[in-house]
């Protein structure tokens, strides 16, 4: 259980280590609110997808597992999309365009294929949730950094979800903005710096505790990050 959480949040983080689902990450992380919204919707879909596939896994023949997985994920996303539209319409207006995008997010398919298809219900659900939370905190960090540096605010657009709240102006109001951060290159720069930061932290930890660490988790540390 502990390992599943650690993998999802840090060791095998979907964005920083597996580099999966970059298309929605880079496209949606323009503001903190957008990023968190997509992150929450992704958690919900990953939870449902892992749950559904872990419980159906004995029925799915190995040869056709990918089409069946895609079918199940697409159906679940459609169900989430329709239910949000009908019952939580205000949230849907905000998230509307992001939810169909989740189908194209390879994290969902990757976790279903690599974990849910081989593990029990409880472990698979936890893995879906933790991978989703790992996705959420990184995309929220990217979104927050881009918004802060790009336009000097945080939480802009929150009034579309909670009409009583408004955004916070953190930098002076005459801050001219930094357009590059709002455009796609800013997303690449931010992501690159975050990955570099994570690799630096990992390298430092390894240097400090060379012996314990190699014994505790030899396989996780030997794997080159991108190949995971």
């Amino acid at each position, binding site marked *: 259980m502990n390992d599943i959480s650690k993998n999802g949040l840090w060791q095998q983080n979907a964005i920083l280590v597996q580099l999966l689902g970059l298309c929605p990450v880079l496209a949606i992380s323009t503001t903190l609110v957008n990023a968190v919204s997509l992150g929450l919707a992704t958690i919900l879909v990953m939870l449902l997808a892992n749950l559904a596939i872990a419980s159906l896994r004995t029925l799915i023949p*190995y040869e056709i597992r990918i089409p069946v997985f895609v079918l*199940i994920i697409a159906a679940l996303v459609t169900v989430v999309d329709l239910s949000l539209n009908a019952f939580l319409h205000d949230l849907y207006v905000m998230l509307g365009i992001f939810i169909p995008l989740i189908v194209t997010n390879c994290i969902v*398919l990757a976790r279903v294929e690599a974990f849910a298809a081989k593990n029990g219900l409880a472990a698979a659900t936890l893995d879906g949730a933790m991978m989703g939370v790992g996705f959420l905190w990184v995309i929220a960090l990217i979104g927050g950094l881009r918004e802060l540096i790009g336009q000097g605010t945080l939480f802009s657009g929150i009034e579309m979800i909670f009409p009583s709240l408004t955004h916070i102006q953190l930098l002076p109001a005459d801050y001219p903005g930094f357009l590059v951060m709002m455009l796609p290159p800013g997303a690449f720069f931010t992501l690159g710096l975050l990955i570099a930061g994570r690799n630096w932290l990992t390298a430092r930890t390894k240097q400090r505790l060379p012996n314990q660490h190699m014994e505790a988790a030899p396989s996780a540390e030997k794997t080159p990050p991108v190949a995971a």
Partner: protein
Amino acid sequence: MSELHDPAGNTPQGAPPGRSATHIALRTAFILLAFTLAFTALMASVHYLTAPRVAASAQTEKLRLIAVVLAPTIYNNHLLNDAITLPPTGALGTTENTLLYRARKNNQPAALVFEAVAPDGYAGKINLLLAVAHTGELLALRVTQHKETPGLGDYIDPKKDRNKTRPWINQFDHLGFDRVPVEKWRVKKDGGHFDQMAGATISARAVANASGRALAWANQHREALFALPPKAQYPNTEALTEVPPEKPGVIHE
């Protein structure tokens, strides 16, 4: 996804050895078909169960959007039922059928609400929603869809405008050609009346020009538009007004 799987754990279960390839293929196809049917049925039933609520939400959404340009105090008819269909219209920049709503107060014509498209934004089309009063003034104007550069040209959308107290788009409110003549209905950089932000003129120019064309069109066709019965199709205005047929998307000055 290229990693190899342990074949022992993943071979099709329940397929006893010795069965023919055809048998296995048919069995696999059948399972795939069963999954497809089951999940299509799931999606269809959710769609069926949510459809009325989705339609109601869409109507509320439409009214909320209209309320942004048209104050609810101006009319008291059922706006969504008093709509007519407009064909693609060069003066509005539309390339598809659009709806035009007619607001009436105590059965007297009050205002027209309709869509227009500015084809010449910096990043393609800018969709607009306008409310034009029966007196000929533009009540309000909103950008409903655009792809202008974030942080640069997107101030045409008041949600993105940093000036929250007096957003750029509000300078069009309650203006008619009596106060801003048609030849002045353009941005200051083009010698007109409306402000633009330095460095991002194209978006403002597109919105100003498109709203001027749309306002002129509405004023010209006002009485005919109000006279049509609900749900009717407005005849092609290009033919009526003898405006040379323009290709949508290339309407520049």
